[in-house]
């Protein structure tokens, strides 16, 4: 059974541990993300969700444990290498290039996926190939009609959408989304749910999210993290009725539904 699950998974995390001083930010975390699904990680603030994402993307090195992506251990690979291997990340704190246009941002993502950039002469803005691919991904998130706008002049919600488009532009095998709905209003959250469910139909997604409505309407699988540990991983329906999860995280809010 376990072997079977592993064969079917894109990302396989085994006994991952990371401590900062005396605090165990990641405490023996094992997870397996199935190909093609949307897997959400929920948990209270400080549960270690972002630290987990940072270890998966290569920003932080774990103390012990292993991460297998697409059948190979990526533990020794750096951030850039993991990204090129097809593991694209979006950030909790919006990390788009505010000084550039929407299109230029998306083009950077495409450029990152297209091999080396030691090309010193041809101007990027005349690179139609790059722009066309970037436009496709902007269309996915609905920003194609505003592609010429400078990013600092667009709304927070649109910047979050661009963040997703940049990750998509890298044509990854899997997306790591760190709170894609962070700081969004109702309307914007609704729009993002639409976007992610269409993206999720084609790509594997591992997302960390606080917004329960979003999680429950998007995710196939749910993992609950508390104090650096994964206390439960199961389907959405089963997690919602799991008494231990309700006690430690969901509180009474679920009982009312």
């Amino acid at each position, binding site marked *: 059974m376990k072997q079977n699950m592993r064969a079917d998974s894109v990302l396989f995390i085994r006994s991952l541990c990371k401590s900062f001083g005396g605090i165990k930010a990641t405490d023996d975390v094992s997870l397996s993300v199935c190909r093609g699904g949307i897997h959400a990680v929920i948990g209270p603030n400080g549960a270690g969700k972002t630290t987990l994402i940072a270890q998966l993307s290569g920003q932080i090195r774990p103390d012990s444990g292993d991460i297998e992506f697409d059948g190979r251990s990526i533990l020794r690979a750096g*951030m850039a290498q993991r990204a090129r291997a097809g593991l694209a990340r979006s950030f909790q704190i919006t990390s788009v290039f505010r*000084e550039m246009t929407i299109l230029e941002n998306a083009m950077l993502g495409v450029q990152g996926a297209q091999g080396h950039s030691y090309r010193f002469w041809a101007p990027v803005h005349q690179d139609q190939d790059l722009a066309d691919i970037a436009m496709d991904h902007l269309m996915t998130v609905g920003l194609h009609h505003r592609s010429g706008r400078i990013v600092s002049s667009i709304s927070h919600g649109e910047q979050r959408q661009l963040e997703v488009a940049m990750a998509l532009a890298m044509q990854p095998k899997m997306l790591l989304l760190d709170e894609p709905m962070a700081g969004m209003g109702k309307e914007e959250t609704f729009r993002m749910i639409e976007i992610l469910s269409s993206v999720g139909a084609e790509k594997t997604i591992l997302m960390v999210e606080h917004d329960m409505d979003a999680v429950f309407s998007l995710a196939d699988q749910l993992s609950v993290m508390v104090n650096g540990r994964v206390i439960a991983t199961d389907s959405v329906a089963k997690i919602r009725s799991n008494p231990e999860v309700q006690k430690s995280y969901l509180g009474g809010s679920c009982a009312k539904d």
Partner: protein
Amino acid sequence: MAKPSGTRSVKVYLGMLFLLGIAPLLFQWTNQPFLLDLLSRGLIIGIAALSLNLILGYGGMISLGHVAYLGIGAYCVGIPAYYDIYDGWIHLSLAVVTCALFALITGAVSLRTKGVYFIMITMAFSQMIYFIFLSLEEYGADDGLVIYARSEFPVWINMEGAISMYYWIFGLLILTLFFIHRLVRSRFGRVIIGSKYNDLRMQSLGFNTYGYRLTCYVISAVICGLAGVLLGNFTSFISPEMMSWTRSGELIFMVIIGGTGSLFGPLFGALSFLFLEEALSLITIYWHLIFGGLLIALVLFGKGGIDAWLSKLDK
């Protein structure tokens, strides 16, 4: 993104280049050899400032040791000349190779650090070079080295006269401007600019930014080294003093008052810096005081530098 200087102020820039192009003729007509001398120096330092701007303005790498490459370039003329080797191609290739190597080694170490640490470590490396030349008795140590003749090139490259020397400097300036103009708009340039704004994000997009930044650092050093070759030829006297870290500070000043991350800004900065220095020192011996005050005012109130003001004029 660094604003595309090709659109708004293109007339100002072309006018500026035109003026620089005819300046020697005007100076000759009015019999002002001193001004030609000052302008030649200004353009050489301008090229050095342009090269610094490539890493500082576009790449966000604040190096407080950039004049080391100016010095290395000049000594690559001076030391062979000391042994009666005047072949210009030898001087040039020596300068390119030495600057590239030194930049590769020191850059590989420096670029492991960020911010203040990068500033300090680049300064430390340039002080190393400074003290090495200061202790080389054979090449004059702190007394400096006199270069008795200019680099020899095939007949069609004649650097003997003051005016032809000026036009070779002017030529390298145009080349440098065009090269940087293309470079910062290329794929490579996008990576460099992107990593200035958010290096982590660039890595997460699959760019191994360290390699790109190191390459940029080496390119910048080589351009500065070429300016050094011109400087060695131009001044015919070189000394370790030109590599002291305060000189690097001046170079940073020129870039900032001219406009960081703009193509022409550092050239404007270098020219105004040198002319102001010269003009003020004619007025009073306490000119440093006024000069310092002016620089502070420029940095405080001159947002975006001279280049930004010119763009406003052009609107």
